[in-house]
């Protein structure tokens, strides 16, 4: 019998969204973070491996990504803009030119699940628009996703500009290369680098525990 991530990858590649959803639903007793970390992410990584092994083409990868996106959209919430100013606010985006947004979408879901106000901008958000929105909306946290090494110089620019905003949002960096390279030279001391979805989940819980502690003092 195939491992669930391998099976899921096959459903994504074959465009079988119903079967993919059924498979994910079998893991409903697990937390969303666990499903993302141990099922969906490995499935997408497996698709990357298949390309590396010359078994599929980039076109196949695009189809699989579209199916994965569809499935995520059907099963999970990834936006939440309720008018409750007491809630924490987070905006999530991929740097300009960066098209890999699936991981970030799962991160969005984790924030929604914890009751945050979430604005998910997906792929390719230019820096001007990022700064403009951050100025207007004043998020507590801004999550940036980067998967391509050549985008690293841009990352530095995003971090510098976001760090100089008057309300000083916490900047979180994630994406494939966050777990692969040492990004500290692109960041400020306050920048948080999160390597995978479990770490994101842990970090949000920690943030909330800290808030509760501050509130009780």
């Amino acid at each position: 019998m195939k491992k669930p991530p391998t099976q899921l990858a096959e459903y994504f590649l074959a465009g079988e969204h119903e079967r993919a959803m059924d498979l994910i639903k079998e893991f409903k007793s697990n937390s969303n973070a666990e499903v993302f970390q141990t099922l969906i992410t490995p499935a997408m990584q497996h698709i990357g491996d298949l390309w590396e092994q010359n078994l599929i083409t980039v076109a196949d990868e695009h189809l699989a990504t579209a199916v994965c996106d569809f499935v995520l959209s059907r099963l999970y919430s990834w936006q939440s803009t309720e008018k409750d100013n007491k809630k924490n606010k987070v905006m999530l985006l991929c740097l300009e030119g960066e098209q890999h947004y699936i991981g970030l979408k799962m991160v969005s879901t984790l924030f929604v699940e914890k009751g945050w106000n979430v604005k998910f901008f997906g792929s390719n958000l230019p820096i001007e628009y990022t700064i403009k929105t951050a100025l207007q909306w004043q998020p507590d946290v801004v999550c940036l996703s980067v998967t391509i090494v050549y985008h690293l110089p841009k990352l530095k620019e995003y971090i510098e500009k976001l760090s100089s905003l008057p309300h000083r949002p916490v900047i979180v960096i994630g994406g494939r290369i966050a777990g692969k390279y040492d990004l500290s030279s692109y960041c400020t001391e306050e920048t948080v680098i999160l390597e995978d979805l479990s770490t994101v989940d842990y970090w949000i819980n920690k943030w909330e525990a800290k808030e509760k502690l501050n509130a009780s003092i």
Partner: protein
Amino acid sequence: MHPYERILPVPYIKIDREGAIRSCSEQAHLYFNMETSNINNLIDEGSLQKFWGIGSQKNVPIKLEINMMTKRNKIQLFDTYLYWGTDGEGQLVLLPKDETIADLKEKLLSLQVRLSETNFDLLEQKEELENTLAQLNKLSGPVIKLTNEIALVPLFGKLTEEKVKGFGSQILDAVYQGEFRTLIFDFTAVSDLKAEGMAELHKLFQMLSYMNDGAIKIAGLHPSHAQRMNEFPKSRLFEFVSSLQLILQRNLNGY
């Protein structure tokens, strides 16, 4: 370099086992910065493992999709035909993926962006609508001061829980600030009474009674409202009057 290598009508690069570039066709110069001495500098880092892994294992021609860094410093996908000869030289022919596919990809991407923008626009419009609805709810129960002691609250539209919550707080504020002895709730313009709306209204009457010992009167009930009222537990919090005219006459006689 063999003369034929230079004039090959496709990007062609010859390398050794270390990746050092031995020669290339003129077409290769069109796409790549051939001043570099090693092919690794032209291959995207995400494709290096594929190139040197699967691409180097066989002594038969192999076709691979490889992302290359082009002269314009852009990552571009190439169908790469690779053959390692017994002399340890790798012959590489790199054909850019059909540009129509790139066009399609671009279109797909723009559709995707459009979809996510639409999704976001929709969310923003939803927010706006919610604000408007909240505003409408507030406006559906205005407090009109008739005299220092009497206020009229005409209610409008469908009486839902949200709507009563929406206008409830402003009625409480008005009563807190004024000295009304009589509050008249006029149901003439109420289209539909929801059970949850009535329950919420009952709570509002209760709160009003705590704040002020004046009378709450309900006027302008339709037959359908009366039926709904009947389902409601009898309450001493308010009393019914058959017409607004009557109650105004009674209360304003002294003025």
